[in-house]
């Protein structure tokens, strides 16, 4: 077997995995390589690139359905959808800013890591849009689950299980999505100079309004003062209406302005991709919490060490940038989080740190045991991205 294989078919992948299993030789699965820093480092002699397994296999705009092979670039998928005024609902984040990586993200990589963006609060996560997968498990068996229709409860939902499994349950070869119409227009109501607690209150009130907020972020370290952003979408008149209702309602008495056009797109790309933390060598944590806990979590962390923050999802998603000392402060951060609930992922840190600290939130014993037995069923000898999630490896 090659050190680096780039198969062009599912059948070929199955053969490679069968051999790898027979020889007990683990493989690292690669899409576009743009998210190489995500998860625990994997060291294998062989990499399996999905880059050549690409192409959109089916696109029916009238049925809101798109099916693509795993190695298809996200760019190609988005371009195809844009031509028909449609889009992926979950606004996948691009990790190239955070990691400084090159290349093109693949749709398979997006699924393997369950990558979502700011619109997650309204349009759901990647796993919510995903309606079918084909994959090759650790035995080299070609399997499928779900399909190409958006309502499907036939059998156990392994689609969700594969999504976010970081290549440890199977080599994902094809993915099917429910897609959505793109809005005519998007615009943002920006509010200046709120502290985190005020900001979360405003975001929360807005998310409790009927105006279908699709982005709710707070940037405390914004140049020119803290910025709190509420994104609305729809057809022209609807966007105007929603902005004015928000302005007079949840933002009454606050200093506001409207952001539109390319400024608007730039702002949300920057939030989605956490651009405030690009080009630094500091560590980055990603916390998913109950939105209302965000101010207290920030407060507790700030009393212990210096950090920078980006809040998305109305406060439910906290990005934290800190120095790489004491294992990226993993113990402290997870200890603070345990007072609240939620999970903390070490998204950016040097490989040596990610080998010492669990990158993903350690699961409760019952769930960890379940996860490890599931892994063993899909990949009995542990050859698929071993160590990536530090779900205990099969003995």
């Amino acid at each position, binding site marked *: 077997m090659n050190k680096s294989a780039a198969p062009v078919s599912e059948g070929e992948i199955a053969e490679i995995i069968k051999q790898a299993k027979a020889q007990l030789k683990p493989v690292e699965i690669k899409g576009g390589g743009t998210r190489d820093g995500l998860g625990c480092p994997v060291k294998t002699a062989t990499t399996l690139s999905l880059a050549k397994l690409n192409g959109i296999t089916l696109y029916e*705009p*009238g*049925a809101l*359905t798109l099916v693509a092979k795993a190695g298809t670039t996200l760019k190609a998928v988005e371009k195809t959808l844009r031509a028909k*005024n449609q889009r992926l609902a979950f606004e996948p984040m691009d990790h190239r800013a955070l990691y400084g990586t090159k290349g093109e993200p693949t749709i398979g990589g997006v699924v393997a890591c*369950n990558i*979502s963006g700011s619109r*997650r*609060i309204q349009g*759901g*996560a990647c*796993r919510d849009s995903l309606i079918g997968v084909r994959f090759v498990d650790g035995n080299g*068996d070609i*399997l*499928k689950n779900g*399909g*190409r*229709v*958006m*309502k*499907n*409860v*036939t*059998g*156990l*939902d*392994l*689609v*969700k*299980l594969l*999504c976010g*499994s970081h290549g440890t349950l199977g080599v994902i070869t094809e993915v099917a999505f429910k897609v*959505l*119409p793109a*809005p005519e227009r998007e615009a943002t109501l920006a509010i200046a100079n709120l502290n985190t607690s005020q900001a979360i209150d405003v975001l*929360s009130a807005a*998310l*409790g309004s*009927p105006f279908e907020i699709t982005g709710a972020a707070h940037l405390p370290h914004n140049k020119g003062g803290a910025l709190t952003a509420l994104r609305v979408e729809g057809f022209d*008149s*609807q966007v105007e*209406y929603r902005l004015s209702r928000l302005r007079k309602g949840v933002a009454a008495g606050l200093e506001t302005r409207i952001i539109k056009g390319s400024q608007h797109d730039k702002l949300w790309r920057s939030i989605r991709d956490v651009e405030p933390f690009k080009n630094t060598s500091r560590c980055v944590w990603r916390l*998913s*919490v*109950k*939105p209302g806990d965000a101010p207290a979590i920030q407060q507790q962390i700030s009393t212990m060490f210096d950090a920078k923050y980006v809040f998305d*999802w109305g406060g*439910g998603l906290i990005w934290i940038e800190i120095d790489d000392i004491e294992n990226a402060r993993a113990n402290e951060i997870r200890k603070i989080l345990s007072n609240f*609930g939620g*999970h903390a992922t070490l998204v950016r840190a040097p490989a040596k740190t990610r080998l010492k600290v669990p990158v*993903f*939130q350690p699961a*409760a014993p*019952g*769930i960890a045991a*379940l*996860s490890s037995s*599931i892994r063993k*069923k*899909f990949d009995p000898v542990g050859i698929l991205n071993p160590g990536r999630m530090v779900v205990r490896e099969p003995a």
Partner: protein
Amino acid sequence: MSMIAMPTPDQKILDQRQEIISALQAALPAGRVIHDAAEIRAYECDALTAYRCPPLGVVLPATTQEVSAVMKVCHQLGVPVVPRGAGTSLAGGSLPTADSIILGTARLNATLEIDTANRFIRVQTGVTNLSVTGAVEADGFFYAPDPSSQLACAIAGNIAMNSGGAHCLKYGVTTNNLMGVKMVMADGEIVDIGGAHLDSEGYDILGLICGSEGQLGIVTEAILRILPKPEGARPVLIGYDSAETAGQCVAEIIKSGVLPVAIEYMDRLCIKVTDEFSGAGYPDVEALLIVEVEGSEAEIKEQLAKVVKIANKLKPVELRESASAQESALIWKGRKSAFGAIGQISDYMCLDGTVPVSQLPFVLRRISELSKKYKLEVANVFHAGDGNMHPLILYDANKPGDLETAEKFGAEVLRLCVEVGGCLTGEHGVGIEKRDLMGNQYSAADMEVQMNVKDCFDPGWLLNPSKVFPLEASEARRSGAAK
């Protein structure tokens, strides 16, 4: 004799009935165990009433700890457990076997926490679907998944079946609105999965549990996402003289960029029967669409104008925009009472296959051909926006052979759904009803990997066995032969 077989009950368990009941009584507060033959009868079937079997006994625990106690007893004594919510499953999901205990959620009916600032509600799973919206309505919120059975069905059953409703085109089904659960494992261990935060890292066990039909554990609590109520909503009725044109209209609306909250479809027979039943005032047409949009008054007007323009291009026989809240309610009353109305005139079997939207007209045509072949009438009523069909096959339960014919007819329709790129069930679940058709959609290996997952949760196959997977496929596991 009907066609769906259930395995022979385990004689050893039947012989131990008294001990099992006593052990359960000892583990639970008084009054939680039902074992009187007459009282047990109430649990002998769900809404797939053609199949009935009284269970060994019934337990109605009131707390997660009590559920855990039940599971420990059953685990120790090797007794199968069939979880049951409100028993409205159309797939036989909560049908007992003679050697099983029914674990009902009727007493798990507390609302535990309402948090509108963080947009979730935490409930015990025995609460009804509608009561969840009821609990948050005054605060301006609602729980989105709205199965037509929402007055009766429990959140427990909704989670187990990953239920949908008329409004899921926009809001998604149960799995898209479920944030966390508390679950009792087959051996009685209690686990928490997910929470008031989004998207836990690690394997998506929550996603796996939703739609698992009681195969993986007993879900006792749920954290559900609640959404702010839209300012308003309004439907428009559009009638066409052919299914093709109606199908085309659906695709054109979706392509135009308007995303209605609901696009419902009814055919002539269904229109006639529901109209007589509900007085909805439906027009007499071949195909009727109900398209609903939401928003402020101006937003509604603008969206409806777009929908109406598309609809008019296709020359509808009838087009009626609702002009008042009463008219809207009446339009929906007909649709929501469709199953009940058909039930008044005949026994029926409700299919639930999903097909790609582009295949709807073809599949409808095939169904009407098959209807002639099998000499059984069919009424069609379904969620057209997502291709989730509900052909109702009318039959006479008292006429020997009729049910069998209906089942054969149904199986042929479901195979057709799979052939055109769809699936066996869009929201009702496999249960026993579609169990033996699973091989049409999935290869042996595809099913094996699903059963492998069940092994991880329920190694002894005591949770709702003999459902979902064809009996031959699960035989070794159920009889304990699998490692």
